[in-house]
């Protein structure tokens, strides 16, 4: 039995539970008043999915003797896992309706896509962090901040939908359940603040080691990483000054996350001490 629960099997279970959660949430959307207990079922599925994903990543971490960020597959899984973790805090603190459904859909998509593209998991870096826990923390925090920005993208999307719904007087269906404009504004502001803080800490830790060995990080990775951080920092400052709000803020967050996701490719391909290992093709 234990041999059946390989890391990928656990990650599959996690992804399927996220998908089930998403489908349960969709059922609730078909009526204005969801049957009692649907929300509880959604949360149980998401917690279960997150737990299996955690176990799967943990197994891979044990095998790789480090944080499971060895290839695109692991990074994407980690981003989905982080987004779900942030949702558990944000969802329970702000009681944002529909965010569970959106997060379930988002996490299920990331997790399933990463599982369905074998090429992402054929090669895995070894000794990525040179046995240095600080570099490992730097990488983990950076990817975790992507999870936060992912959730920010979802709340931005919800804000765009709510804005469209109110402007066009289309208030039923999915729009009926959306949180208020002000609530979404507040959550977006806090999420961008949290994401920038985490990424800043991550880059500070990375920079502290980088100055000791400047050649350890190549220019493309440096530029992309600092570029993403700077872009989110500017968004945060503009939001703070009230210069970038509402729909424009939401659009910028959506576009920026798309670009940030694309940046994962160059960052992942340009690792310090990258020693690729060909895994057995599955």
């Amino acid at each position, binding site marked *: 039995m234990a041999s059946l629960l390989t890391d990928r099997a656990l990650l599959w279970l996690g992804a399927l539970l996220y998908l089930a959660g998403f489908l349960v949430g969709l059922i609730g959307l078909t*009526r204005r008043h969801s049957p009692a207990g649907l929300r509880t079922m959604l949360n149980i599925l998401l917690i279960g999915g997150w737990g299996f994903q955690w176990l799967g990543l943990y197994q891979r971490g044990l095998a790789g003797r480090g944080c499971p960020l060895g290839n695109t597959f692991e990074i994407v899984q980690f981003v989905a896992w982080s987004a779900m973790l942030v949702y558990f805090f944000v969802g329970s603190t702000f009681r944002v309706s529909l965010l569970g459904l959106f997060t379930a859909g988002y996490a299920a998509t990331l997790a399933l896509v990463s599982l369905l593209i074998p090429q992402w998991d054929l090669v895995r870096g070894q000794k990525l962090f040179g046995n240095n826990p600080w570099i490992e923390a730097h990488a983990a925090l950076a990817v975790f901040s992507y999870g936060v920005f992912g959730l920010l993208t979802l709340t931005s999307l919800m804000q765009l939908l709510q804005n469209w719904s109110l402007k066009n007087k289309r208030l039923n269906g999915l729009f009926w359940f959306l*949180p208020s404009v002000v609530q979404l504004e507040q959550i977006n502001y806090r999420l961008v603040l949290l994401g920038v803080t985490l990424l800043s800490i991550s880059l500070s830790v990375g920079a502290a080691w980088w100055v000791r060995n400047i050649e350890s990080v190549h220019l493309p990775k440096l530029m992309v990483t600092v570029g993403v951080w700077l872009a989110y920092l500017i968004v945060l400052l503009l939001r703070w000054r009230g210069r970038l709000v509402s729909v424009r803020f939401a659009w910028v967050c959506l576009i920026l996350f798309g670009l940030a996701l694309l940046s994962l490719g160059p960052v992942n391909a340009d690792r310090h001490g990258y020693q690729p290992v060909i895994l057995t093709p599955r």
Partner: protein
Amino acid sequence: MASHPAILFQLGASHHTASLAVREKLALDAARASALASRLGQIAEVGEFALVNTCNRVELYGVASSNAAFPALHAALSAVTGCTTAELDSVVILRQNEAAIGHLFAVAAGLDSQILGETEILGQVKQAYEAALAQHWTGPVLNRVFQKTFQAAKHIRTNTGIGAGQISIATVAVDLAGRIFGELAQTKILVVGAGDIGLKTVQAFQSRGATAITVASRTLAKAEEAAAHAGGWALSLADLPAAIAEADIIASSTSSPDFILTRELIEAGIKQRPARPLFLIDLALPRDVDPATAELANVFLYNLDDLAEIAEENLAQREAEVAKCQAILADRTAALWPQVAHSLNAPHAS
């Protein structure tokens, strides 16, 4: 000698059967309600009773040992309200046993209300029952029926869309404000024009916790009068630009033939508070708010037609839920009736 089973009854009138004029005559204030209860207590054939008395209905629920109770109930109602027997005969309906249970279920669930699906009636039925319980007017039959009624009404609220969406102009506006601001306690409301519809809208906002109300009118005296009524501040239209910058919600209902809230005025106002949305409610005919303001980011404009259309949509959705609610309540009535019938057969029932 064979004993007859007792009868569970509902006897009364509502907006379905009685005109407003008759309902006004039937209406029971505290003194009349007490007088009626006193008379009911003296009818030998009536074992238990409760009085549901709202602006739209006067209904007696009770347990009678025989049909002889009903003329006496009519007489009591006639004596207390001053309605003639003929008047009562034309509006009062008597339902017995299973039909009485079904009716009470429908009333508590808001299916029988003038505003379909409204929730206030459940509280009123609860109050009526608690008053009867406190006075020891109820017994095992009514206690069971009312408890099951509350369970059924709660089930309907939770599992159907009968109470979803608002169906009056003022409450639709409040509902929309909730979608924009969430909690309304912290929102600042500016009412332009001291008309009746604006003030009614303010009342709806106040019922949801809004406290910061400002009334602006062409004449300051009128604004002050309306503000005193609404418990807010007053200002003249000359101070409107500054007030717009402060307001979260603006409800306008003047009789001006031109736009009072122009795009330029609103644009200047929101520039001073860009992060907060602005909800404009145009309750005037001809319109007070320039439709071009709707193009501004973070500004949400709704006029009378928009609000009426939403109210109609919500009502249609509530109506679509009625059949589902009736089926649920019919099942619950059928499940409860054998238990009640058993109690009615027991010696204590009458």
